[in-house]
């Protein structure tokens, strides 16, 4: 029960209170670039959620079992090669390189999957699908997982469930933000925006107002935690 409540807190936190786009500023480039139409925005949001989940799963596995100081697999390999030493092998310097390769592979995998099973969707994405690799939100999710897994012991350390919850609901939050923005921009198309502000300028102003609105959710996780205690 306590585990479930901690999962709910992580989920609500990632999706709404500390929204990836409006609070942590990750994923802003596609947020501004792809949010012209609601259907495209929703598709992008779903693709990002899919990629984040796969990437988070693989990152957690690599961090927990190979990269963190004292990781089981590395320790076992080290023991077989030099049984006498008691040095803790710490491969965490390779964290970022491993994460970015995991992300690039996840995007490749999703690309192949879409091309095979949803060809029209794959076509409509065009060049934006490989660009998901440079979406900060995915690397950010991996970094959050690293913060709570690498070198952390005891009840504070995140297991796979918590990591996946953060990833999925981070993607959900990104989707919520980008779909909202697309809806607003579709309306803005009919408005008389001053020429210098057209495009990115007015989008950022709207994003600022959205961020202000989402600030109102601060403290909800604390109240939720008290409710579930």
């Amino acid at each position: 029960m306590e585990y479930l409540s901690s999962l709910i807190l992580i989920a609500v936190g990632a999706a709404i209170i500390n929204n990836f786009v409006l609070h942590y500023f990750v994923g802003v480039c596609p947020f501004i670039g792809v949010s012209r139409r609601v259907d495209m925005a929703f598709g992008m949001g779903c693709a990002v959620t899919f990629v984040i989940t796969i990437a988070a799963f693989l990152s957690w596995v690599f961090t927990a079992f190979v990269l963190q100081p004292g990781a089981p697999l590395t320790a076992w390999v080290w023991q077989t090669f030099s049984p006498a030493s008691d040095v803790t092998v710490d491969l965490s310097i390779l964290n970022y390189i491993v994460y970015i390769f995991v992300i690039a592979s996840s995007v490749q995998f999703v690309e192949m999957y879409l091309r095979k099973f949803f060809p029209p969707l794959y076509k409509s994405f065009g060049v934006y699908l490989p660009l998901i690799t440079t979406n900060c939100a995915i690397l950010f999710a991996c970094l959050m997982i690293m913060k709570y897994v690498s070198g952390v012991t005891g009840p504070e350390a995140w297991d796979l469930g918590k990591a996946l919850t953060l990833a999925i609901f981070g993607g959900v939050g990104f989707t919520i933000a980008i779909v909202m923005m697309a809806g607003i921009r579709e309306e803005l198309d009919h408005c008389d925006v001053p020429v210098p502000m057209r495009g990115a300028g007015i989008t950022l102003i709207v994003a600022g107002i959205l961020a202000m609105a989402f600030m109102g959710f601060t403290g909800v996780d604390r109240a939720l935690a008290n409710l579930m205690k």
Partner: protein
Amino acid sequence: MKNDIGQAWLVIVLSLLFGGALAGVQAKLQGKIEENRLAETLSQIPRLVPGAQSGEATVLAGRSVYRAMVGERQVGWVLLAGGQGFADRIDLLIGLDVGVKTLTGLYVLDQRETPGLGNRIVEDAWRGQFVGKTTAAPLQVTKAEAAVQSEIRSVTGATISSESVCDIVNSTVADLRDELAAEAIRE
């Protein structure tokens, strides 16, 4: 296929080169980084337990605690504590006397509270309220001036941040009180 392998040699060579460079960086800097992390906590110990000169890290009930020492004699405890604040997690260092009877200091390690409001829990004046409070009764937050010994005046406009700090202090002390009293190095 042969073409792909032939083209992959560049990636392999680069990986080896970069791997070597990173191993060098790791060897040179890791010690310094660990030092920084520890120094942040250890440097606060003299301020949290008056008279203490050094700290010794140990683990009690799965949590990080530090003995505040003067030479070989233990003069107090410093506990690493954390919990949910208003906006995000708050991490604290709590200073206690050896018998875990009074609080001797409070230091905020990490917080992301609202700037100008909840942020003010880091101010010396507010944290100074905790010095000398007994651990016999849990601390309460009040918006007016503290009337009773166990009351802490909240930061104006940031009641929840103040309450969070008190909750963290109360629960940490309650959790570890017995173990700490038993483990203290007596003369």
